[in-house]
């Protein structure tokens, strides 16, 4: 169990491995701004699928950030988007926007007030999302292609680690045999 001593569990202790990473510097601040869409709007709806790969996983993003710092050059995330070095114009723009919407002094600097705000409990849904209607239409079109493949016995374009394609191919072969 998580250790506690008070009747109301208010002193429940968390192991360090269960604590969220704090936003402490411009690198982690950049991660925050990227994750919640301030650097570029997030395609949040597509992440609902278990096999979605369009939003950078937190660990891998952190690794890329370290790589960026070590190598001193831009690195690409798994989604193919370019990252921004700390204090790049995009970073500053995103920081200004975050400060503005959060009611903070709009300084463009990663100051203490901004750090506190970023570390507050918050919802995981990005603040800036790609247009939802546009996203739905795109995804629906993609699924229509898969359905067409099933009906007309065409083979879907193979995608790595895409179980859906496996399903399409299996059902296609079953229909061919039938």
């Amino acid at each position, binding site marked *: 169990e998580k250790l506690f001593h008070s009747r109301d569990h208010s002193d429940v202790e968390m192991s360090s491995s269960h604590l969220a990473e704090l936003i402490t510097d411009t690198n982690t601040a950049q991660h925050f701004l990227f994750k919640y869409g301030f650097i570029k709007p997030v395609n949040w709806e597509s992440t609902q*699928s*278990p096999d*979605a*790969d369009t939003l950078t996983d937190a660990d891998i993003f952190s690794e890329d950030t370290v790589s960026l710092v070590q190598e001193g050059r831009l690195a690409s995330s798994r989604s193919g988007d370019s990252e921004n070095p700390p204090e790049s114009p995009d970073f500053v723009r995103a920081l200004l926007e975050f400060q503005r919407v959060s009611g903070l002094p709009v300084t463009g600097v990663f100051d203490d007030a901004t750090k506190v705000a970023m570390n*507050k*409990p918050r*919802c*995981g849904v990005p603040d800036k999302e790609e247009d939802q*209607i546009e996203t739905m239409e795109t995804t629906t079109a993609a*699924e229509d292609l898969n359905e067409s493949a099933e009906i007309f016995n065409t083979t879907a374009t193979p995608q790595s680690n895409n179980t859906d394609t496996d399903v399409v191919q299996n059902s296609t072969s079953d229909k061919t045999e039938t």
Partner: protein
Amino acid sequence: EKQHHLQTLMRKTRRRKRSTGALWGHAAFSKSVLTWRLIGEGYSSQLSVDEQRYIFRLAFRMWSEVSPLQFVEDLHSPLDEIDIRLGFGTGRHFGCSQRFDGAGREFAHAWFLGDIHFDDDEHFTAPNTGNGISLLKVAVHEIGHVLGLPHIYRSGSIMQPSYRPQDDGFELDWLDRKAIQNLYGGCEGRFSTVFDWIRKERTAYGEVVVRFNTYFMRNSWYWLYENRSNRTRYGDPVSVQVGWHGLPSSGVDAYVHVWSHTTDEVYFFKGTQYWRYDSENDQVFSEDADGQRYPRLISEGFPGVPSPIDTAYYDRRDAHIYFFRGSMVYRFSVQANKLAAKSPQKMTELFPALTLGDHPTSNLDAAYFSYTHNTLFLLKGTSYWRVVGRRERKMKRSLPYNSLLPSREVQQQWFDICDVHASALK
């Protein structure tokens, strides 16, 4: 195999939800009754299951009280047929692509027309229990996302992205209500009756003051309407049985308050019967001081008045009760205890329309004298007509007596009188 099955289920669910189309020109659920379930493998380790389900029921009900949507907990249907699934997880959870970050920062996430996941590494607490993160507040926020609301950067909005420590009794404010109604429309519906209930109180100095409260009744439910706040009381509707002891549980047709220098009597009408209400003891009279027993037949207490009636009201200007039935109005003299001469008369004759064709004509739902507006209103369906009174005739003498101003929508005057699912009523 389990992951493949889950992916197939989720793909089918999303396809079905998208095929339901868009409502009100925006992307939204197209049906008005939505099912939800706290999934069995997603219980929190911090609160009892009953507490979790209670909090979610309350969270859904709060949205139901301000929108035409109703929510029902469904414990029996196959999981892929549930509209909104909720669950607690930590780190990697439910095959979700978005890993939770541990204690601190992210407390939950949700998807439009989709599911809600709560980070069980956060210290969630029941409402009004001090430290921790209010599960109710988080749930209301995430349900807002499921219904189609984005984050809103406005102080006081439940859709702010960052968690604000809970104020005592947080509620959905005016702008949050309008935001959800932008997607799903306002609340509409007919009413059984509407009235202002007069209450006499004695101050600390011994003075008698008169106060009133406004009530809207629809079948077996009712709302108290707070005129100064432009909304109903938080937590309404309430069952008629709970608030009005002795009245029929299915509701009433009409309310009449006969109030004069010599008389102060309240009556409720339903079908062929009527009851007199004892406001001091907060229940109907079984027998009043005059020896009359209740319920009593309308034909006995008000000779000449047919039943059932559509609605009624007492007009203090002429000391008559106006009974409405069909297209006719029966004026009943309280002093003479009989119908007035010339009764009945057509509604269009006693209450002429100012705009040709703009008239309820028959089958009124309610005749409501409002002390807030000092005006009589006639309600039918989703529309109401304001009856020209002394103030209007002072400004424009040519207005006919008791004529009806052009109709307006009820929801433009009285806001957010919304049904909830019957299972949410206590």
